[in-house]
């Protein structure tokens, strides 16, 4: 178990290093001078040269990469050109919006998907199953940011229950903050819930025919108890896996939904850094998001080992 863990962690570190190198090299290989992108076309050659030196662009690539990496290790992500502040602080600040948003969305999607999926599996091929199946199938095809737009029309414009966007900040109180994140989280959660419902249903159906569930029923456990005590916990493994696999899409969705609702999150920061040509910020945010996806999938892998002891032997 320990040796597996060490091997996984080593592989995680290598993967993260390769991702950082890849992002750095790709940004370097792309045509265009970062200094010129930051300053625009009207900059004088002297200013350009000065900025290039300041950005360290006169150094060779390996030196720049190592310097950047060393900085990242020490929590120094570089300086933003437009905001004039350290990028690390900027990311930390924006995370206070994106993290709760993503968390709310994941919790909501699981909260919708697991009961629906279990219920559909319990009465599979029935009317309820058919309706749940159709709704979840359709919800997968619907873009999250469009759900956001529609919810603004319904809840803000027509009913006036919710703010149409923006974020008051956590200083305005927990409730106000959560309220501002509610519609965006729903928009993010619905397509995810569609995917997860299908996975949960299939997983429960699979497990229900296993011997131990049959044994549980045979020893006199009621249908509901057998389901929730034995079938559901086992069916959670594929659901958790799917959350990990869908994490890339959750982040992509967050970038869009934050822009729809004008939320000052990390996704909006990425978008703004593009508009403002703030390459340092963009590079760091892309690295951060990618590392997040990799770490989440790593954790899902670990969770596997905890949930399912069978996987602890015979690891590739």
């Amino acid at each position, binding site marked *: 178990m320990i040796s597996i863990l060490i091997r996984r962690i080593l592989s995680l570190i290598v993967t993260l290093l390769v991702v950082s190198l890849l992002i750095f090299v790709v940004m370097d290989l792309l045509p265009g001078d970062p200094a010129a992108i930051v300053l625009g076309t009207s900059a004088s050659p002297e200013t350009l040269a000065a900025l290039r030196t300041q950005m360290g662009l006169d150094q060779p690539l390996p030196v720049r990469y190592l310097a950047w990496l060393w900085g990242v290790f020490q929590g120094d992500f570089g300086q933003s050109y437009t905001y004039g502040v350290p990028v690390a602080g900027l990311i930390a600040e924006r995370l206070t919006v994106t993290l709760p948003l993503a968390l709310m969305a994941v919790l909501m999607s699981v909260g919708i998907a697991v009961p629906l999926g279990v219920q559909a599996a319990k009465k599979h091929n029935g009317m309820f199953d058919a309706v749940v199946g159709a709704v979840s199938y359709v919800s997968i095809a*619907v873009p999250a940011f469009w759900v956001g737009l529609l919810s603004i*029309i319904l809840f803000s414009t027509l009913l006036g229950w919710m703010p149409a966007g923006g974020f008051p900040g956590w200083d305005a109180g927990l409730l106000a903050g959560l309220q501002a994140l509610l519609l965006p989280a729903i928009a993010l959660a619905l397509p995810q819930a569609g995917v997860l419902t299908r996975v949960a249903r*299939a997983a429960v159906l699979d497990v229900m025919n296993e011997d131990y569930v049959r044994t549980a029923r045979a020893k006199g456990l009621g249908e509901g108890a057998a389901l929730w005590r034995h079938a559901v916990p086992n069916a959670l493994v594929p659901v958790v896996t799917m959350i990990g696999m869908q994490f890339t899409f959750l982040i*992509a969705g967050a970038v869009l939904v934050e822009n729809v609702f004008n939320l000052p999150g990390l996704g909006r920061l990425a978008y703004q850094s*593009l508009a403002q040509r703030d390459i340092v910020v963009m590079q760091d945010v*892309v690295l951060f998001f990618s590392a997040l996806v*990799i770490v989440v*999938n790593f954790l899902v892998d670990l969770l596997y080992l905890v949930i399912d002891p069978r996987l602890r032997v015979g690891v590739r």
Partner: protein
Amino acid sequence: MRQLLRRPVLLAGLVVTLFLFLVALLSLVWTPYPPSKMNIVHKLKPPFEFGLLGTDQFGRDVASALMVGAWNSLSTALLAVAIGATIGTAVGTVVAMRRGWVEQIVMRGCDIIFAVPPILSAMMLGAFIGSGRFTAVIAIATFMVPVFARLTLAAARQIWTRDYVAAAVGMGRSKLKITFVHILPNISNQIIVQVTIQLGLAILTEAGLSYLGLGMPPPNPTWGRMLADSQTFLGQAPWLALMPGLAIAIAVLGLNMLGDGLRDLLDPRSTP
């Protein structure tokens, strides 16, 4: 034909997808109005009052823009999936041929590419080479490569263990020849199914990119940018936000149904 009637999902998917392709192709030769022609007198007219689906803030016909948007969206998605599927399949089959450390490295590489959402790679590309169809296609295609590489590797690996492949190896056939004669024909069904499903995903991604202004530049209408433009007029003209989103959802739904239907038909064993 009778096969088709017994499979409602496949039939529905086929009908929707065909309709989508026809509308997209039709837009190349005919639209009710010129899609980018402004007509300020008729601005923000609701559906049926001017044209079939109303007009936008410049008086442009929404139905015409949606039709051209279908072409822009579909052609971008098709191009991206074609590139991604070709490279991914090539990588997957070659790796299945070689195995060993090559497989380890390529699969790790796939994990890494998969970790960067296409929206972020499009932003990186957009900063340097500018946004546009090229940026969108490259960003989406890059994301598709690991999807197809993983799929073909897993599928091809199974075929390599079959007896008839072992027989071919025993007869001294080269690995490349076996790949073309035995492996590719046997995994082509799974690839076709995946292409259909990924087309839906590509349309969703393209819409997101255009929404952020990373897709085709104006005045080319795209579904994503129509949604972005609609946001200013949500109170006055909600239909502007309704129609393009509906178009995206129907297109993706149709392609998903077609993909699942094809899977049932071509590859019944892997049906969930």
